[in-house]
């Protein structure tokens, strides 16, 4: 045992001699200031922790104590420690010993030291109620010796055995923290919380310790030394005054701030009531593709295990879930089948329905690299986007007709016998179906329906059949909710039959989502699937058993059905995490009223908004930079992010809130840190085995799931010879016909790079807000003429379910008959989302 621990031991002696019955030892590692804080406290009157002591909270349940600690002698001992320790007095005369030690003056291994020291105390004083807490970087571990004692068999809980058990326990706990100590670096990495690229960034702080910005990691395979406009300029929002920094509950017609205890109790109470009165299917849970894997996993666990409902889903239902489902059905995984690295090495890239330079800049960057290697780029987008300007071929497709060109190409390749027969394996039923109907979709039909010239389509098909490495990059612009799945089946089929489904550097990459769209899906925040995307219906007992749920999982309502349920009254309680349901539904008063009629509305958010204003209980969540966890990016890369700044006010990480609430409802599971949730995910979610924080090969760059059996650095390929399943993908009659006399122009909806989704965060960052502070309707001059609208004029966009107010800008590079509007809170309000195209009429 070395210096520091001996000092602590000396001081503890005094407490013991004074017959103190409960003692707490807390050690906090303050790496920002390079010091270790130590607190020793006579704990006979309550539970203490470093944070409590720091806040000076008065201890409750004071007992009359007959013990007397000789403060003078304690002082003498403390002063012998080179002034490291000081004596203070607690609220009621108890002694508190505090000390700060410079981190770099500590020689040797403090963890082992403390473990040995504490265990020796326990050995000689087995009746002392000792609490130990170690805190570092917003994570803490604490334990009471009595807990350890209780877990030992009675005959073995004597002094020496107990001491050994304590020592083992402390050492095991501190293993996790050891890696923090061992890193000489004083910086934690974080992952950018905006798009699904998942760039790794390093925080920069001012002298006062405020977060001033992020800089990119150079060696990271995604960020590669570069961030986008969002990554560089988006830390300001955590300091914005609109942050919710304390829990709130509805009382007397308004909302008041309250303690966590009150908020949790109210929510638990109400939830139990609703559960009892109306049953589990009256409760809905909305997860978030912006929250970490642990958050979504726990929400799913709470929904399925604690409440027993299957009504859990995220907003991705309208955008990315259909894509993942189609890929799952086709390839066995609900995710991209290739990686960013493969994009830069592709010979042919087909970019469909995504404006990558804005929504997934890293994918765009890899495309530029591929172009530098003379790759062919085909961009399928009615708009002349930045990436379209670089394309070898730009197909200005008629919006919503993707299924036709895909089918056209499939037909053509089948007829020309240019498919990869070796991969189709003999009598592939799906393929037979495709073959049967191939004649119905000649190239000429494709041209008529899509406005893409036949020759171009044929050229592309030939190229696809001949190159070795081809990548399909797919965004949610590929279609509206109702047809997306089928269209993606088509794309998956096309990739499969040409041998580019996910082998040898080819594959499909899904871009444009949020930072954890993939992870939220993988974690099973879905009504009809378990974690890993396994459909509940028909999944085997073993899979269910792995999850260890109290109740067997049931199929529930999806996002749209839950919201309809709110309107119809079937849903009585709603738990919303990180989603503003009213953002683009605000015009819809009926929905807003229905929300007001819920018996319980719990909203977990970082900023106040109209939804939080009507919530029964508001839980303030920590922002991404204030907490730890993992997220999964577009190429299935699972990455850890660390807290880089202290939590604002009284906020807590999402997972912790859900966990606290679950506990308040009587759940039996226990987690101490987010890494415990992590470990559980590793043990039961397919493909996430690599997540275990105690695995040695847990490198900073994360891993692409699935990790190989030997825990080596993961392969971007899935398997060498995988089998895909072909599903019917030919479009039905009448598909895609939407416009008519009344609504002759198709409006496609998109996004501005600096106004991210609903702008909750990005509009609160000054440079992002300044960048695109307006949105405009982009019209072709022909259509502008038709509607008699001039450049810059204010216009009303009229569609079947409402009106949007904005101003018009004339663009010649749009095809006639197509208009474009970017989501924006000032000029781009509309409802509902998830619809990518609407027929419109415009008037000034």
């Amino acid at each position, binding site marked *: 045992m070395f210096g520091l621990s001996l000092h602590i031991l000396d001081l503890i002696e005094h407490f013991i001699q004074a017959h103190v019955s409960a003692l707490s030892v807390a050690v906090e590692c303050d790496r920002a*200031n*390079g010091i270790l804080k130590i607190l020793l406290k006579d704990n006979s009157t309550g539970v203490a922790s470093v944070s409590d002591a720091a806040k000076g909270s008065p201890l409750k349940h004071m007992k009359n104590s007959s013990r007397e600690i000789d403060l003078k002698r304690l002082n003498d001992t403390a002063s012998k420690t080179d002034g490291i320790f000081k004596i203070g007095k607690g609220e009621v005369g108890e002694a508190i010993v505090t000390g700060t030690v410079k*981190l*770099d003056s500590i020689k040797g291994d403090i963890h082992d030291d403390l473990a040995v020291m504490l265990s020796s105390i326990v050995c000689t004083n087995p009746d002392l109620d000792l609490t130990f807490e170690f805190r570092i970087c917003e994570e803490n571990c604490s334990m009471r010796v009595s807990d350890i004692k209780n877990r030992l068999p009675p005959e073995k809980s004597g002094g020496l055995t107990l001491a050994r058990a304590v020592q083992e326990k402390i050492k095991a706990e501190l293993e996790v923290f050891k890696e923090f100590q061992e*890193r*000489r*670096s*004083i*910086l934690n990495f974080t992952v950018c919380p905006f798009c699904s690229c998942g760039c790794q960034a*390093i925080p*920069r702080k*001012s*002298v006062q310790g*405020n977060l*001033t*910005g992020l*800089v*990119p*990691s*150079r*060696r*990271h395979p995604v960020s*590669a*030394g*570069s*961030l*986008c*406009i969002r990554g*560089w*300029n988006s830390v300001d929002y955590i*300091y914005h*005054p609109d942050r919710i920094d304390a829990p709130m509950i509805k009382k007397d017609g308004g909302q008041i701030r309250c303690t966590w205890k009150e908020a949790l109790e109210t929510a638990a109470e109400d939830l139990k009531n609703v559960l009892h009165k109306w049953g589990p299917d009256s409760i809905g849970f909305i997860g978030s593709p912006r929250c970490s894997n642990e958050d979504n996993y726990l929400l799913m666990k709470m929904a399925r295990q604690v409440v027993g409902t299957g009504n859990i889903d995220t907003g991705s239902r309208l955008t990315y879930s259909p894509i993942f489902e189609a890929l799952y059905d086709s390839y066995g995984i609900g995710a991209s089948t290739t990686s960013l690295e493969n994009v830069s090495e592709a010979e042919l890239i087909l970019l469909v329905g995504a404006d990558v*330079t*804005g929504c997934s*800049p*890293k994918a*765009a*960057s890899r495309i*530029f690299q591929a172009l*530098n290697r003379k790759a062919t780029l085909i961009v399928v987008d009615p708009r002349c986007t*930045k990436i379209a*300007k*670089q394309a070898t071929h730009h197909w200005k497709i008629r919006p919503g007709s993707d299924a036709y060109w895909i089918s056209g190409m499939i037909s053509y390749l089948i007829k020309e016998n240019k498919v990869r027969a070796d991969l189709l394996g003999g009598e592939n039923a799906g393929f037979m179906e495709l073959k049967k109907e191939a004649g119905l979709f000649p190239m000429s039909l494709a041209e008529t329906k899509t406005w893409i010239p036949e020759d171009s389509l044929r050229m592309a098909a030939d190229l696809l059949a001949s190159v070795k490495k081809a990548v399909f990059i797919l965004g949610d612009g590929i279609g509206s909710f109702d047809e997306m799945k089928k269209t993606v089946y088509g794309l998956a089929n096309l990739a499969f039959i040409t041998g580019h489904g996910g082998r040898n550097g080819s594959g499909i990459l899904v871009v444009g989502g949020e930072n954890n769209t993939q992870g939220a899906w993988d974690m099973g925040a879905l009504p009809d699937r378990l974690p890993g995307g396994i459909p509940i219906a028909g999944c085997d007992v073993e899979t269910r058993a792995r999850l260890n749920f109290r109740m067997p999982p049931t199929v529930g309502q999806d996002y749209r059905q839950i919201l309809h349920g709110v309107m119809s009254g079937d849903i009585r309680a709603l738990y919303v995490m990180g989603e503003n349901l009213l953002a683009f539904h605000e015009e819809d008063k009926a929905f807003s009223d229905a929300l007001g009629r819920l018996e319980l509305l719990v909203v977990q958010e970082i900023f106040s908004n109209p939804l939080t204003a009507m919530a029964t209980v508001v839980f303030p969540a920590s922002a991404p930079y204030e907490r730890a966890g993992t997220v999964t990016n577009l190429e299935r890369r699972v990455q850890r992010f660390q807290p880089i700044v202290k939590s604002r006010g009284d906020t807590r990480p999402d997972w912790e809130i859900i966990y606290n609430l679950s506990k308040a409802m009587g759940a039996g599971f226990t987690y101490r840190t987010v890494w415990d949730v992590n470990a559980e995910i590793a043990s039961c979610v397919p493909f996430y085995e690599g997540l275990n924080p105690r695995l040695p090969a847990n490198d*900073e*760059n994360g891993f692409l799931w699935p990790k190989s059996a030997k825990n080596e650095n993961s392969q971007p390929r899935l398997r060498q010879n995988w089998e895909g399943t072909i599903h019917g993908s030919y479009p039905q009659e009448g598909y895609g016909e939407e416009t008519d006399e009344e609504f002759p122009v198709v409006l496609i909806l998109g996004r501005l790079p600096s106004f991210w989704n609903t702008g909750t965060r990005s509009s609160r960052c*000054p*440079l992002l807000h*300044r*960048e*695109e*502070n*307006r949105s405009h309707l982009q019209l072709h001059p022909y259509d502008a003429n038709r509607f008699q609208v001039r450049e810059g004029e204010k216009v009303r966009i009229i569609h079947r379910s409402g009106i949007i107010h904005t101003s018009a800008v004339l663009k010649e590079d749009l095809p006639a008959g197509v208009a474009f509007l970017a989501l924006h809170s000032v000029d781009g309000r509309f409802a509902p989302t998830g619809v990518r195209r609407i027929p419109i009429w415009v008037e000034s």
Partner: protein
Amino acid sequence: MFAVNKIPISGLGEDRTIKEKHMISTILKDDFFTVLRGLAKTSRMIAPVMLSNGELLYDRIQCIEDVSLQPGIPIMSAKEFFFSSCEELFRFKRIGTDAIDFVQPEEAEACVFLGIRSCDLNGVRYLERFYKRKFNDTTVTKKIEKTVFISLGCLDPGEQCFCACCDSGPFLSDGFDAQLTDLDNRWMVEIATARAETLLRPYDNLFTPATDADLNERKNILSCVDSKFTRRSFMAMGVKKVSLGAVEEEVWEAFGDRCISCGSCVFVCPTCSCFNVLDREIGEEGVRLRTWDACSYSGFTREVSGHNPRPRAADRLKRRFFHKLSYQTTKDSGRLGCMGCGRCVVSCPSLADISTFVTTLRSVRTV
């Protein structure tokens, strides 16, 4: 070499960075670490830190063991310690609508900047000149004045480095207080200012004056380093063509089409100096902040009326390259606005950086 009117005429093979007036000595590396420990006790220190993934980053040092003088270029330039990415210009507290109190920002503190690369130090000096011109911006210049720079010459240029083409490295002849050369088991230390001399005097006994053999070794090192550069950017030609307006519109368009206006090149650049000023307030108290800004963003010049003089990425890129390659050479006594650090080469996602631009000019026929 012989001097004519005290200006030494240097020819090939001469070490043009060694000045006669510099005090040159060597010190064993272990001893130097002792010096650093001593310095760290008395002054604040900024130095490169090695992160857990092996990358380097300049940072404020709390623990001397964090200092890394390993080769490699730090992720960000040194400007963030002087021209901060988010700086409090002053705080204010309103008392009603008719009175207000100001709180001045804290005084800049003296510190030692150890291990700054030549390109980055040159960038700091450039910024010093810029922020002193006409109106002296003390929020930046004072910090620079109070810093003692112990720079580190690079022996291992990376693929992206072209400081030699910009007269900005790998070793400098002035601008530093002391310059280090890695002589394997020793450091060669050239002291150029009295400040550095005073700082290091207490450790005098650990230093040995440089011998001719040492100077020879240094000379060999320099010529060896020169040959390690793989990137040649013909900056002088770039300056000429851009200044004469002899770059065709198609070239600007091609680069503008590729530039996605992410701002990365601006934020990593040692000489970029544009900023935004905004107020942030909570209740009656507030602070006026200055944050980095980038001329690559379309909102940078957009006027309140909505009119934007530089609406296209090509316009903004044109402005940026003009600024770096042309105006600066006329305004700044012929010195280039680009330090050749190559960070923009690494961080540009679409090959629209200045080195690629200058190289492209070589192959494009001009008017």
